[in-house]
């Protein structure tokens, strides 16, 4: 299966390990990622709070590039990128005034027949849990994880149009497929505070500590996410006493599939994953932890 890959800016910087693990896991599951040529910002940063046209035109330009390259599916690993791209796609599909404006600004004609999916969605819907289970060679048996979807992966429901907006299960299913034990917990779709981390750190600290406390109460050893901002907020703004590693779901999948570069990804973590993962993969650990 060939899909257009939209990495987004985080995956080039703070979430490099996410990008690396995605690029390793996808081919192992028979998915060929073809990076969208000359892609640009998805509009999730300042654009969507400052300029409504720009907030749609930026992602639309990426869709235009994907369309030009003959793609049918655009995959975004980052939840915010996914949200922006999908929002733009919805507007284009609706064909209203906004759609006209966007197409004029970007200078392309939308043909339809394009899909935008999050990576979780692609693995869950197109690869399938059964196929993943069959390819696992190092099942993470007994690893209790809290799957954290945050606010954008499955919402707003009319845009995301995927999974249950209140009680999503796709990532839980993926984790179960690689042998881990997803716990049922209450904060799966809470907000982590997103970019407020930069300007009002205290707000984010409060939100993050609530989320991690719920994860702890549910007996999770680690939190699994599909969003760079969630990952960094949860590791960076956590209360000092909670030392719970936050994984990209692709990192754990890579581990379970027996992919070679796992150690490299894990080095980038701020919380040492060794205490949690060493029983599956001796020697794995964050840079600090050695």
């Amino acid at each position: 299966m060939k899909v257009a890959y939209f990495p987004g800016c985080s995956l080039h910087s703070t979430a490099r390990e996410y990008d690396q693990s995605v690029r390793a896991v996808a081919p192992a599951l028979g998915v060929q990622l073809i990076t969208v040529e000359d892609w640009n910002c998805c509009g999730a940063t300042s654009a969507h709070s400052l300029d409504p046209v720009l907030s749609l035109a930026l992602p639309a330009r990426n869709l235009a590039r994907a369309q030009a390259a003959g793609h049918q599916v655009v995959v975004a690993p980052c939840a915010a990128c996914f949200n922006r791209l999908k929002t733009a796609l919805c507007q284009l599909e609706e064909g209203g005034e906004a759609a006209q404006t966007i197409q004029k600004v970007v200078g392309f004609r939308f043909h339809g027949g394009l899909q935008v999916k999050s990576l979780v969605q692609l693995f869950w819907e197109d690869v399938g849990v059964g196929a993943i289970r069959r390819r696992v060679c190092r099942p993470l048996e007994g690893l209790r994880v809290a799957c954290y979807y945050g606010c954008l992966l499955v919402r707003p429901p009319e845009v995301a149009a995927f999974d249950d907006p209140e009680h999503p299960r796709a990532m839980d299913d993926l984790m179960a497929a690689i042998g881990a034990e997803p716990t049922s917990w209450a904060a799966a779709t809470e907000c982590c505070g997103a970019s407020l981390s930069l300007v009002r750190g205290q707000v984010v600290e409060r939100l993050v500590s609530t989320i991690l406390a719920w994860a702890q109460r549910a007996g999770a050893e680690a939190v699994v996410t599909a969003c760079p901002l969630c990952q960094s907020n949860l590791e960076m703004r956590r209360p000092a006493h909670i030392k719970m590693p936050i994984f990209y779901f692709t990192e754990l999948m890579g581990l379970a599939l027996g992919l070679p570069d796992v150690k490299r990804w894990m080095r980038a973590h701020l919380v040492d994953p060794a205490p949690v993962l060493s029983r599956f993969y001796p020697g794995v650990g964050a840079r600090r932890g050695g």
Partner: protein
Amino acid sequence: MPESRNGMSTVGAVLVVGAGISGMQSALDLAEAGFRVHLVDEAWAIGGTMAQLDKTFPTNDCAMCILSPKLVEAGRHLNIQLHPGTVLERLEGEPGRFRAILRRKARYVDVDKCTACGDCLAPCPVELPNPFDGNLGVRKAIYKLYPQAIPNAFAIEKRGVSPCRKACPAGVNAHAYVALLRSGRIKEAWQVIMRTLPFPSVCGRVCTHPCEEECFRGQVDRPVAIRDLKRAIADWMAEHPDQMELEPCQERLKGRVAVVGAGPAGLTAAYQLARRGVSVTVFEALPVLGGMMRVGIPAFRLPREVLDREIRFILSLGIEVRLNSALGRDFTLDELFEDGYQSIIVATGAHVSQRAGLPGEELEGVFHGVDFLRSVNLGRSPRLGGRVAVIGGGNTALDAARTALRLGAESVCVYYRRSRAEMPASDEEVEQARAEGVQFSFLCSPVALVGRNGRVTQLRLVRNRLAEPDASGRRRPVPVEGSEYHVDVDAVILAIGQRPSSEALRQAGLAVDGRGLVVSGPDGRTSREGVYAGGDVTTGPATVVEAVAAGNRVAAAVAAVLRGEVGEQGMGGPNEERRVAPFPADVVPVPRERARPRELPPGVRRTNFDEVVGGLSLEEAVAEAERCLNCGGCSECLQCVPACRPAAIDHHQEDQLEEIEVGAVILSAGFELFDARLKGEYGFGRYPNVITSMQFERMLSASGPWEGHVRRPSDGRPPRRIAFIQCVGSRDLRGGYRHCSGVCCMYTAKEAIIAKEHVPGLEVTVFCMDVRAYGKEFERYYQRAQEEYGVRYVRSMVASVKEIPDSRNLLLRYSTEDGQLREEEFDLVVLAVGIRPSSAGVETARRLGVQTDEDGLLRTRELEPGLTSRPGVFVAGALAGPKDIPETVTEASAVAALAAAQLAEARGQLAREPRYPPERSVEGEPPRVGVFVCHCGINIAGTVDVEAVVEHARGLPDVVWAEDLLFTCSQDSIALIKERVGEHQLNRVVVASCTPRTHEPLFQNTIREAGLNPHLFEMTNIREQSSWVHRELPERATDKACDLVSMAVAKARLLRPVPARHFEVDPRALVIGGGLAGMTASLCLAAQGFEVYLVERERELGGMARRVKYTVGGDDPSGLVDRLIGEVLGNPRIRVYLNHQVEETAGYVGNYVTVLRGGDDSRRTEIRHGAVIIATGAREATTDQYLYGRHPRVVTQLELEEMLASGKLAGCRVVMIQCVGSRTPQRPYCSRICCAEAVKNAVRIRERYPASSVVIFYRDIRTYGLLEEHYRRARERGVLFIRYDPEQPPEVRPDGDQLLVCGRDPATGWSLEMEADLLVLSPGVEPQDGTIQLSRLFKLPLTEDGFFAEAHMKLRPVDFAADGVYLCGLAHGPKLMQESITQARAAAMRAAVLLGKGRLEARGIVAYVRERACSGCGLCVKSCPYDARQIDPESKKARVTEVLCQGCGACVVACPNGASQQAGFSKEQILAMVEAALR
């Protein structure tokens, strides 16, 4: 038959769709009024939602206690035909003469035979969530809807075939055996398997279990381990051979059949035929039985003793076996026919290995899969060497590989041409093989075998890549050029397929196709007559279960021939045509680990042929069986069939169409609850301690799943803090229902109160927007909940509910009114779910072409309630909009009136009267008592020795006949009792059985049909009062039953006939009040053919309605009022007395004499009539608050309306204040209409005057039900709503010519000050002048608030306690115009029921006075609640007005002299019972 206008005759029958409280009320009114009624409901019993309720607001009456008499009445009414489990499919024809096509769903229980004894319950293994209990409890697949259900009969819930059963090629009923196993009935489970599968142990081990692939449990977590469960059952049976007993076979066949081939197909066919008595001989080429099961499957997967055991059992049915007999070699088919076999079944399998066609295939050390396995299994192990290569990816390849390991190979590698994902072998076997050390190499194909000295040494391969999918749907392997390589090997096993040995078959004269397969039809018929074939020989290699399926099919075909049936036979599978059940949406499955059987450690098992996989213990198996979701509902295990003694169960019933003729149709299918799962943020369906209000209602109910104990579902502990969340699915534009559901605020108040009574110290918090306590007495109830019970109300919508993992408590997040975010913990959360029209009802309406709105509502025009878009089809109840019980009941009577008016000419045409033989006089006869004692199946006889009770009865004085009956209430028993009365000249009858509440009228009717007065009957309850309560003490229960019978006989001996008494009814009505309600009621009565006297105090008709200029929905009421006035004045049946008042009245129901005075000359007019309707209205309350009357710019809403109508609005800054004088200690009720009125006027101002502004100060906006949309419209139009607390009302100051209004906005906490051009007050509604005088005149009660008090808040909303007087309109309480119209019609209908009777029968059981003993003290007069007693002015003795007496007995107790007596309960009779009990 009367002719209608178009020459067609009108049918005097009405179809009522929906038998809830609404349908029942319509049906009862119409049936009583002389129409035949067909009462249709989808459910298996009538009663609707009300039957589920615990208590009712605002009186806290027990819902079932008040409903139950109606159920019995509707169930027994001669003119009501019940159609339970029925839907209205089509409606043809026209008003007055419709043809209705009904579909009666299969019930699988014959209602006429079912006695509701419940003996079927214990054997039923399937427990399903009980929707009647909001799925909080469980019920069996065979069930009665609820204990008091009418008709009192069971039904079976079938949802389709369970997917497991449908998936099984052999049609093995997995659902049934899993269910039976779960309930611990192993033998029965085994019997179910053995119906279609004689190899449970074999298939319990090696089946490819297609059932598990389809199992819906797999959508929750993992499929149920069905195969392991089958094995557990079979292995348990093997340990208990004494239990091995097949179900008796229904048919016996004669004949001789030969089966060629003793594999799974042949042996199954032999088994099925032998069970039916056919003499079967099996011919087998090999020296052993079992076919591929023995020579193909290795012992480590299927131990030999297991196979032997199962074959032994099959042979024990009397099957003859010839081993070493091969077709073509040792015998021919012709010889078999000559030997006298009538049919021959060929099932010789596919035992020839496919050749690969590789160079070097003939080398030594090269084996073929099945040949290799056969040799090993027959004990001839070939020499392999150290390195073994296996080619292929199927189960044979894996079996060969694992066998090779066990034979001592050092390394075994499986080479497969595609990838792991495409491999046909099952996952579990691949895993097991891997664990044992088998290696795999994918994407490679062999190209040649190379040998040295004639022995293979090298395997040459080429790598493949996968191309597009081929015909099998799997991706096709394509060799990669130049990728050849080789491996060194000592042996190669080619396992690439097998086929039948076709030569012998061809020679036997059977047509064989190119692949060597025997050509056969679906039933196994071959080209040769009398010869059938099945299994691998016809299909190529397949699974055991497929072979078994073939065996079943062929056996069925042969059996049909032996039976003498001709022609093509069907496939014979039991599930062929049947629908798979949908995923069971009602279960909330908690993920639970699938049972894992133990396996031998890989290191141990690769050294021997011991069985690798162990079985589950029985306990593990039962626990695993509990994971089954019971998708199909009834599992069709058929255990109920033999358990049912009256033989009422028929699993083959089908839906049936029925056609009836009716003149009108009433749709009253009611409502359904909002699915709370759609509001994911509240976690319903995930968090066990979040429940719906209906679940809570059932929890509170004594008949609920927990018998009234309030507990948390998660741990059964009583909660300490409960939160109610209001408006779940109501007033909600996102996924919910736009309207207000109208009832939730009140049921929440009720549930909160009752819960607090159940659980001491309980804290209850209600989260809500507005509290809509708008109905009669509702506001008081709401105040009581707060003040008396301490229920806390928080005005906020809850944002989210989260479960706290350890305690399973719930954390509610909400913002307070001043914007603070708050979190609070509760033990239990109740979601007050809204109501929406029943989807089944909406579908019916749409099928009928009746218009529905976008919400599915059968919305009627505002001032034409009850009329749908299709003439002759009426709507009542929640289908037309959410409403509470009294409004529903009122509407039901109102549409009954519409139907009755339409069909007036056919009244009585189809009504049936009971016909009885003349009553036999028993005067002077000595008592001859007959006693009938009921077994009630095993309900009574299981504990009480019924024969002993009969024996005891025979010895009692005057008992001339006594006998026991299996079910006394069954049709045949009823006939028998009648016979016995004649046979033995019985003149008293006693039945000892169950409760008189449901059964006494039946038996009374029985003896009346036998010519006896019904009061010569006595009943005693030896079930509820003896067998059920003393189950542990059978002997003493028998003694007690004897005592009860003695008492009944003692009384029966003294019973006397009570003659029926009748009195005439004057068919004219008096309607007091000429407003909207009075005029509507008068016209409605006149339309039904009754004469009416309409009295109006004013000089003109119209009343308050004249002041209403437009309705909230925009209708024009003045047109309606003018039309009504015209119709009233022009109607020859209505006599109008304007400017008249009632002066005096006398008489009783059916016979009133009333004096009117009035007219310009104050003339006195005396009129006679049979009924009275009070429709005297109410008025706008007066006020002096907020400068009213002192400032010209302060007006009331009615005055504003007049301004708006005349276009003279004084200024455009308008402020309104709600609840002026209402909901205060002085006037504690809510006036109901003011919110709608204010919203109506505010919208009109904003729409007419765009520059205007409107601010409304309110306490709660009570735009209940469909009015909510007007509230929304007002907000959309920019009307500003500001809530105020009664402690801090807005203040109004004059500001010169203008006004200044000051208030506080609770949302911001800011003080507001605004200038206003106009202040509009909503002063509410007050009782009309003269209400008190009228209430005294007619002796009618008033509520505390001064409105008339109806007989019963819920179920008699327009009746007075005194018969013959009815109530409607504002005199009953504040209401909107459409509500008045409905109520007026309802009152008219209730009156019409009475007036149409002609004569009334007085109750038999009434009080009488022994005048000699009466001292005229008058105590009985005071004690009589029904005004049925007077002191005769002349004789000075007490007198009973029998028509009014209700037989309550209060006067009997009150009388100091024993002068007051009660017929049927005389002192002598009671004392005789006491004596009998003490003897």
